[in-house]
């Protein structure tokens, strides 16, 4: 799933990884789905003492990770999460990959089954610049962070922050923490209402847990 990450500009967009890292408690067990070249896994292992495992679709990414000594398997979020027993991990992370899965709801349910908590980051399709492109140009939006045309993008299931919040409710999960990032990658004001986040947040990071 490097495909999802490689299409994002390196600097601003990957600040979400730092946000994700801050949501993970030290010395826990983590599965990072779509771990790419293992940047987050490495950060978590080295800075948080985490038992970090990864799953990655692209062979190149897997090879890079394993050669770096990371525990990573080649696998597909849509099909291979079913093999893990319940509560295998403290956190299951899906960063910038949800929109590239075939069945995002099923993936989210599996994450919440095999992990005690799930962390999901995704690009917000409700951002004002995207709304403007659709409204005035009448075309599928192309932005710095989503640079590919509709017919060649791997991102087949875009959602807005509001859409995601609704999905969280549908899969019987609750939001423990949520952070929206503005286009510069900076976290937005915590107490801003949802509609502000949905309009001005370019990306969002959610920490979820099963509803008790």
């Amino acid at each position, binding site marked *: 799933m490097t495909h999802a990450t490689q299409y994002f500009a390196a600097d601003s967009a990957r600040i979400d990884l730092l946000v994700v890292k801050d949501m993970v408690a030290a010395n826990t067990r983590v599965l990072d789905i779509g771990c790419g070249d293992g940047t987050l896994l490495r950060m978590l292992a080295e800075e948080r003492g985490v038992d970090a*495992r990864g799953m990655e679709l692209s*062979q190149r990414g*897997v*090879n890079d*990770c*394993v*050669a*770096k*000594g*990371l*525990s*990573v*398997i*080649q*696998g597909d979020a849509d099909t291979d999460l079913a*093999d*893990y*027993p319940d509560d*295998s991990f403290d956190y299951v992370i899906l960063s910038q990959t949800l929109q590239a899965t075939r069945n995002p709801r099923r993936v989210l349910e599996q994450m919440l089954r095999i992990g005690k908590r799930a962390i999901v980051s995704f690009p917000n399709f409700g951002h004002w610049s995207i709304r403007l492109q659709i409204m005035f140009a009448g075309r599928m939006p192309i932005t710095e962070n989503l640079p590919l045309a509709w017919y060649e993008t791997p991102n087949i299931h875009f959602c807005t922050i509001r859409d995601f919040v609704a999905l969280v409710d549908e899969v019987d999960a609750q939001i423990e923490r949520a952070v929206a990032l503005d286009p510069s990658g900076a976290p937005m004001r915590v107490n801003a209402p949802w509609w502000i986040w949905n309009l001005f947040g370019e990306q969002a990071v959610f920490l979820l847990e099963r509803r008790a």
Partner: protein
Amino acid sequence: MTEIDPLKAGQAARREVDAPHSLVLSLPADRPLMMDAGVGLAPLIIAYQTYGTLNADKTNAILVCHALTGDQHVANIHPLTGKPGWWEIMVGPGKPIDTDRFFVICSNVLGGCLGTTGPASTNPATGMPYGLDMPMVTIRDMVRAQALLVDHLGISKLFCVIGGSMGGMQVLQWAASYPERVFCAIPIATAPRHSSQNIAFNEVGRQAVMADPEWAGGRYFDFGKSPTKGLAVARMAAHITYLSDEALHRKFGRKLQNKTAPTFSFDADFQIESYLRHQGSTFVERFDANTYLYLTRAMDYFDLAEDYDGSLARAFKDTKTRFCIVSFTSDWLFPTSASRSIVHALNANSASVSFVEIDTDKGHDAFLLDVPDLLATTSGFIESSARAFGLKEAKSA
């Protein structure tokens, strides 16, 4: 076909069977190896090679498991062929399995013909080779014999067990039988059970051997004969399965051998024919026909899940061993799906597992060849595992 002098080839190979150019562990007759066939084998002789130095804590040992036609000569000149060891790309000073840092052990498998007790070995009860009197050998029996060797070397826990193909089967068996004795395991291009297709190919090879009149019901030594023609055909057929269609096409295509036009005969017109005939004729100079029958049978019988009520996951229950599983895209003999089934079983146990499918057109044989992704994966995994196991950086440190 190149003319083989069966007597000459046989004599050199015969010498290695009972007096190998290797270290030898002889287990006394009162300590039989209990085999899956339900009999005890005694005396048991295990021929092995080691490289590097065992550290004071005896924690830096890596056991290499060889494949069907391999042997213990991993990284030294082969006593019969005069060629370099079969895995010098992987094992040696500064290599992924660094002999400056690790103590590397490889033993000839039980049933083999390079010094470990097998059908070619002299049966002390009769003074003649065992032949078909040798009990049927299983992968688990091979691993039991290796465990005796590891005991003998005073090693309670192996840092790593690694091997490809039939060697990979032994790695899986080690992890299942002795989980507490294996810190990390690297099964390459292998499967948790032999497929129907693989059994079929093995059967073709065995029938080729047994159809050779010189096989003589397995008692060819008694008559000073050797079923070299049958064994060569078996090797030729098997060799095709180790390569991919792309690799064969790239290497040979339809090129003719030392001629510009077909001869309209059954000579080796095509380069691929000549190549296979060469593979066959050189193989019989170093390998025993009955051993080929026994070892292919051991692979056929391998089905790890069967020993655990049909559940592969149960074979690895609560395992603490770290796994790195490797397959190759063009390996149709041990396809990626087989490796993936191991990954699934390990995931079901929340085991520490890495899995890499390496893109290469070199087929099953890729595990023996200079495939940079294989070397990088292996060295990265071994390096991080050594750190986790608390091994020091270098021997001198």
